[in-house]
């Protein structure tokens, strides 16, 4: 685990680290590597789980059927969903624009990307 690797990781997260900061963070990263080692060890520890771990699923919320997915109807149609969710996400476009840190003629503004 080198400082350069750490700094590369930081750039990926848009949280660049200076050299001193990177060095200070190294111990925490070393601990992370221990967790990875534990994960690798779990592969061989059938006794702890009662089954070979590679046979276990990785999904966390169970399988759903296509029929349970969202109907393709625009939010501002007369769809009464009030019982399930008295919330509404309709017609919030202007609210969202009001929260733009910088805007112009209905666009969000940034320094030029190119």
């Amino acid at each position, binding site marked *: 685990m080198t400082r350069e*690797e*750490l700094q590369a*990781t*930081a750039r*990926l*997260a*848009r*949280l*660049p*680290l200076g050299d001193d900061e990177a060095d200070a*963070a190294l111990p*925490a*990263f070393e601990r*992370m590597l*221990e*967790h*990875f*080692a*534990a*994960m*690798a*060890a*779990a*592969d061989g*520890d059938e*006794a*702890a*789980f*009662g*089954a070979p*771990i*590679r046979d*276990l*699923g*990785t*999904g*966390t*919320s*169970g399988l*759903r059927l296509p029929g*349970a*997915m*969202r109907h393709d109807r625009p939010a501002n149609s007369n769809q009464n*969903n009030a019982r*399930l*969710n*008295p*919330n*509404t*996400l309709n017609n*919030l476009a202007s609210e*969202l624009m009001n*929260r*733009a*840190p910088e805007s112009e003629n209905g666009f*969000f503004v*940034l*320094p*030029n*990307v190119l």
Partner: protein
Amino acid sequence: MTRTVCKDGFSAYLRAWEARIGSFLEIDEEAVSKAARSHGSAGASGGGPLAGLPFGVKDNVAVAGMRLSCGSRMLDGFVSPYSATAVARLVAAGAAPVGKTNMDEFGMGSSTDTSAYGRTNNPWDVSRVAGGSSGGSAAAVAAGLVPFALGSDTGGSVRQPASFCGVVGLKPTNGAVSRFGLVAYASSLETIGVLADSAARARAVFEAMRGADPLDQTSRDRPDGVPGARAGTGERAGARIIGVLSPEAAARALAGSPGDGASGDGTPLLEPEVAAAFEEAKERMRSLGYRLEELELPSLAYASAAYYTIALAEASANLARFDGVRYGRRPAGAPNPEALVEGARAAGFGDEVRLRILLGTFALRAGFQDRYYLRAQRARAGIRRDFERALAGRDAVLMPVYPTRAFGRGAEAPSPFAQKAADLFTCCANLAGLPALAFPTGVSGGLPVGVQLVGAAFGEDALLDAAEEYGEAYPTGRPDGYEEYWT
């Protein structure tokens, strides 16, 4: 300890407490005072158990028109344009959100002291923490400012502060309550939870919030075949058998975990007051007619590793959206978008949050060909299996909540070995996706102590039944200065 009902003095009561504990970041004082005045008066009955009740909302759960800072500078001044589904359903049930409560920044902490907006003090001893990350909600309920408050529980963030503040803390089954409107930290681990002044109150809140939400496709109704809510006749659900994960069994599980010095240094896992309270709770459960069976959960050896890998990896992705482009603050005069984003994130995130994002990014990097995140999810499935085995034929598993009572600031942390166990007792319910309930069992050395029950998926009722029974037989106290405004 006094219990006087002094409705007209509620504003003064609220202000006095807030000056000492600082549980709210934003509060509509008029609304909560009005609720206090009209509470329980003739004509206000009917309309359900939540009608007219005010509640606090942790500042990472959206309430339209209120701040949503998540305890972070990143969202300083941000006002949510929409409400979380859980909040909307409580409003539909007649309750009213009156304020946003303090929390550890983005849910990452166990004290609430990492909030960018100040600390929250424990109502039982203001020199101590309220716990975290839902410390503000726990303290507000403990002080009687509101009868209940919403929190979020990723690895114990509802239950640990509940235990530190002597209130009931419910973490529902993952998927039982919609997460829409909960600012995500670790999506597959977290739930919106309830801090309440009684188990009965927690149950009423949970019932109003629960159920499938089209806006959260991971949310579900209770499946058929799981025992439903008990009838109001006093009949109890469940078999009245409780498994016990003793501190020693937890230590044995930890000894099995690979990595550094897991064999421990001989120090007991629990603070003596907490250990004694745990034994007392066991005795009292027996006296109520529960049969207790000691058990082992060897899979807990991998709980920490799995928890940290998953939580940090998901956090790194969930917090990527905070970049100052569409909302939030941005640095002035950035020369290009990359500098703008980096500047916004550097200024907005505290140290702990930045570190966790980096660790999570690291965990997901391509260099780790074996996809540790997926492995952690498999280990997690294994932990769930282990719990399901332990819960077969039983109502719940009893275990401690946290190794210590509310700790002080600058005080010594629990021993390194105990620190590993610190998250263990709570994070395993998040890993297994199961419901867990922390409830107070007494006061020791002037601070609350409590225990935790972990149940089968969608088995919240059995947990609440036991806690309600315990609470009726062995009522615990309230902090000095507490006045009961909410019956």
